[in-house]
Structures are given as C-alpha cells and as structure tokens.
C-alpha cells in the first residue's frame, strides 16, 4: 500500500499550527508559525514545515483540513472545519475521557461539552468583549514588562493575589499600572490576573455544564499559573498536555483522516470552499 498522510492546519490570530498524521493516527510531524499579514503564506509555511518535520514530501499528504479564524486561507486544503469542532476532537484524541474542554485563545475563549463519542453536546464562547481571553494576558504581561511565558513561574511566588476588576482588556493595562504604582508586587498582580481569567472561564464552562474530565487546550494552557488558578477555583484537576497548542490542528487532521476512511464525499465542506 502506498504511504499516505493527512494534515490539519490551524490558522489562529497570532500563530498557525500544522500537524501531520499517518493512517494509524500517529503524529508524525508538527509545526508552529507566527502569523503575519500574509496569512495564506504563513498557513502554507506552517504546513510545509510540518511536512519537513515529518520528513515527507507534501504530495504524500492526501487530505488537508483547515481550521481557525484563518481557515479560509488554507487554500491548499480540501476541508474546512471550525476550530470548535477541531479543538474538541483533538482534546478527546489525547485524553479520551474528556467531556469538557476549555480553550483560552487570543480573541476567543470557548468551553465545549462533549459526548462519549466526541460529539459536541454544547459550546459557549465569550461575548462581544475580549476580557478573559488570552489577549488580556498578553496586554497585561506587556504592561508589567514580562513575556507571556514568564507569567506562570512568576505567579508562583504570589502570596496575596490582587483583585483585578477591569472588564476591558485595554483598561486592564491601566489597572495593572496603577496597582504597580500602589506598590503591589508583580507576582500578586499576575496571580490576580490569572484568577480573574479563571473566574470568567468558569462562568463560560458553567453555561455548558461542568463535568469531568476537563481538558484545558490552547496556548494559554502552558501557563502553569493559569492552570493552578483554574484548578483552585474548580476544586479539581484538569488535563493539560505539551501538545495542547496543536489540539486544533490534531482535530483537523483527524477529520481529514475520517473522511478518507469513510471514502465518501467530504461532508464537512461549508460553502466557502465551493466559492
């Protein structure tokens, strides 16, 4: 039998991620690429880098699914699925018992309830306001002069988290500056930010029902401080994985694989593809 692969390309607002799967559902290649105004090129670069990582020719990849906000820019792909479906699928692939996923993304935070077979029972996303999204953390990290990856370790030193009340990401920046000016410790402010986002995320999770197991996906899940704040507020453990940034892309690749296995016409092909 000929060597065949599928790919998932998840084009978000700040990064593009790609995953290559073989026909036995093994992850054989992955990549991460910053997104510039040239989204289509970045998507393709991410895909090619993943092929390179897998050590295969791009021609071997027979079906590609695009997902994420820039999913329509994955012009070299054949399928388009929203990142909501993909994240859920990816999370359940890594943690099969997942019944609830939380994805804190750059502009969106989403909570997705899943059934046993990976079907989405319900999902909920943040409203017209960016409070509680990953961008909130970026902006505040900036105001404090940290990089986002520092936030986890820094918050560990916190003894008395500061209460952050701002509901506006941009105004939160002022609040952070004011707290600093008042002499509050950076670690307490960072920890306060984590709790504030955890609170908002849990509110979203409640809309779909909080059930075990919970898997935390997306880039922010690498932030150990954020994980701790969520676990503390939820009173239970949550799954995190070093692959969490790629869950969307993994899910996308799995959709491609299933389509191949079905041998049928792509079912998840929204109209944009036809245009």
């Amino acid at each position, binding site marked *: 039998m000929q060597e065949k692969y599928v790919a998932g390309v998840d084009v978000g607002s700040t990064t593009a991620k790609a995953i290559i799967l073989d026909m036995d559902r093994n992850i054989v290649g992955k990549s991460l690429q910053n997104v510039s105004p040239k989204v289509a090129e970045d998507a393709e670069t991410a895909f090619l880098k993943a092929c390179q990582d897998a050590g295969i020719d791009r021609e071997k990849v027979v079906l590609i699914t695009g997902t994420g906000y820039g999913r329509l820019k994955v012009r070299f792909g054949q399928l388009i699925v929203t990142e909501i479906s993909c994240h859920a699928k990816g999370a359940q692939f890594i943690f099969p018992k997942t019944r609830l996923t939380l994805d804190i993304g750059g502009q969106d935070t989403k909570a997705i309830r899943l059934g046993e077979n990976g079907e989405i029972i319900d999902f909920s996303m943040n409203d*017209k306001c960016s409070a509680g999204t990953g961008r909130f953390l970026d902006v505040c990290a900036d105001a404090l002069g940290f990089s986002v990856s520092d936030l986890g370790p820094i918050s560990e030193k916190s003894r008395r988290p500061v209460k952050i009340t701002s509901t506006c990401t941009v105004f939160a920046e002022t609040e952070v500056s004011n707290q600093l000016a008042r002499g509050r410790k950076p670690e307490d402010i960072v920890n306060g930010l984590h709790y504030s986002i955890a609170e908002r995320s849990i509110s979203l999770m409640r809309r779909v029902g909080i059930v075990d197991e919970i898997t935390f996906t997306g880039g922010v899940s690498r932030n150990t401080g954020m994980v701790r704040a969520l676990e503390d507020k939820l009173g239970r453990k949550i799954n995190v994985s070093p692959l969490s940034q790629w869950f969307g892309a993994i899910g996308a690749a799995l959709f491609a694989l299933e389509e191949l296995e079905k041998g049928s016409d792509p079912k998840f092909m929204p109209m944009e593809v036809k245009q």
Partner: protein
Amino acid sequence: MENIVAVKEEDLQYAGAARKMQRQLVRDFYRQDVTKPVVYLFVGGNPAELLRALGFQVYMPEITALTMAIRHQSLQYILKAESIGYGLDVCGYVKTDIGLTHLSGGETDMGKIPRPDLLVCNYSGCSVYAKWWEALAEFYKVPLIMLDIPYHRFNDPQKEDLEYIIGQLREMVEKIEKLFDLTFDMNRLKDVLAYSRKAEDGWGRSFEMAKHVPSPIDAYFESIFYMFPINALRGTKEAAEFYDLLNRELDERVKHGIGPVENEEFRTVIEGVPPYPGYRSFWNMFKKWNAVSVAATYPKVGGMFDIPELRHDPAKPWESIARYSIFSYCNLSWDFRRETIKRYLEDFKADALVIHGIKSCRSFTAGQGDLRDYVINELGYPALYVESDHQDPRYWAEAQILNRVDAFFEALRMKR
C-alpha cells in the same frame, strides 16, 4: 408526504409573488401622500384599528428604523442621535428614529417620513416605548396619549386588566375626538377590524404551513419580510389581500415539495430580534447548512396571531383589541414564552433552537440565556446563542458569529 412533481421554483405560477407584492407595499407606503393627521404607534399591541377608524394615517418608527438598518443606512442616524447625548447603550430604534426624523427632517431615499400630529404610547411589553414617546412629545410639541397595557402574567388576562385597557381605549377615543374634532364611527371600526381579522387569519395560516416537511417557508428570514403588511398596514384591504397571495404561493410550493433551501436538512426554531445590519449574511449562514427555520417568535412581536383566540374580532371590538394588546410577544411572561418555544419545537418537528440576542432590546433579550438553559437541560434540544444588535452595525461581528453558527451545525451533523 405529498407527491413530488419535478418542477423548478421559477416555473411556478406564484413564484416570488408575495415578496414582489411586499416590496411594492413598502414602496407605496413610503411614497404615499400625507392627507390625514399622522399618528405614531408602536408595533407591539397597538390600537391601529381605532386610529384608522378615526381617520389617521398610521406610522410606526420601529418599522422605518429596521428598514433603514436592513438597507445599511442606520449608523449615520444613530451617530446623529448620539451627538445630542443619546448613549451607546440606548436602543438603536430610538436613536435611528430620532436621528432620522427629528434631526434630519425625515428625508429618506424611499420617501419622506412625516412628523406626527399625535403620539399614542401603547405601552405593551417595552418600557423604552414610554421614554421614546416622552422625548418625541417634547421635540414635536404634539399631544401624547398613554395607553397602559398590563404585563401578561396569568394564564388568562383577568377581567380587571381588560376593563382597565378598555376604559383607557374609550378615554383615548374621546380625547382624540376633542383634540382633532373628529367623530368616532363604530361601523367604520368594524370594517377595519374585519380586514384585520382576514389578514390575521391568513398570516396565521402561513405559520401553520411550516409544519410541512420540507417547509415551504422560512418562518424567520422570509416571514420577517412578510411582517410588513400585518404590522404597518393591519386593518387595510391591501394587508388582507397580501396574505391570500402569500398562502397561494405557499400552497403551490407545498404541492411541488419546494422549500426555501434546495435540500432541507435542519429545521430550527429561531428566537430573538434579527441582526438587521447583517441580515443577508446571517441568512446565508443558515442557508449553506440547508437549515430552515420552521417557527420563530420575532414575527409575533406585533401579535400572537398564530393563536386564533387572539385575533381581532368585529363582533367584540373593544374586548378583542384589549385582549390582543396584552399578547404581543414582548409583553409575555417568561413562563408563556418558554411554553411557546416548547410548543414550536415539538409541533414543527424542529431539530434545534437558535437564539439571537441583541444589545438594544432588553425586553426581548434579558433572560434568553435562561431560556437556552431550559431548552437544553429540560427539553433536551440543542440550542445556540449568538449576540449582536438589530440596528447598530458596530455590534455585528460577522467572523465570530459565522464561527459559532458553523460549529453548531457541524455538531448537529456529527450527531446524526
């Protein structure tokens, strides 16, 4: 299942006839000459029949506002109203109307909106109505009559509520007779009521038609166009005739198994005020998934005409006007709204509920999250909640809404 004869929609005798007539009615309405005194009324639970019988030309600023929004013209008027102090969070209807009529003289590319000679505040289901009319009364210096409609809280409106409304209706008629030197004629009212009744019967029937599989009508996206005659022209001959035509078109569609999408795959019930600034895009999001709405609550803002007992009745003029006014959709208790949606989901063989919440209308929107919870957890139907506004394009975030709608239907498909 009916026998399906292979016919293309465009070959049908009545293809697009209702939509064509509706467009004409809108055009004619905005081009009509002002020959009579002008009264402004609200859509929800209004006494239009009485005012028509008294010889008034009836205008509803809500309808003008939504017409502007769907034509992508609302923002300029909203900004005008904001510039005199109306806040970001004030209802978009209020701002569009004040920006268009008070601040721009009512000139539109469809025709001129006349200033009112009389304001009747049919206070039914929306507290902003009172604020809005108070302001207009100051801007235009014209008489304002308050018609207080008690909120619907009981299974039947109680005798006292009806007496209160009827008492006020009679007082209103007397007051107008004096103010405008007019004489009320009961026979004229009965004629108007008969036209209303006929239109309401026809409109009610068109809702029933959506029980067919496939549904011949999109009971949200299409019905919203067909709302114009029942709301703006109720009590006229034109409105009555319109629904005859609509039903002929629907009968023909049923006969040939034709529906608003080629291949009906999902049947949804839709709750909430539409996002007029993104109306077409929103509709397309559903069309591409072959989703048809088979019942919706918004077309009932002018009255629950799907319930025969709530239609106007020339045999009981005062009582039927009073009873009708309590039951405009926004004046209904959440108990009644929940029951209504349950009934729609079951009777129309729907797969899911879609809720569109808006910033402007808290009457419609506050509690829709609770409804979502009820539908999912108590009735066991999937439900989607999305948010924007019915007038203000600044709240229409297309990419985000598309994302949610796509994910929702993906999930429904996967479950099949």
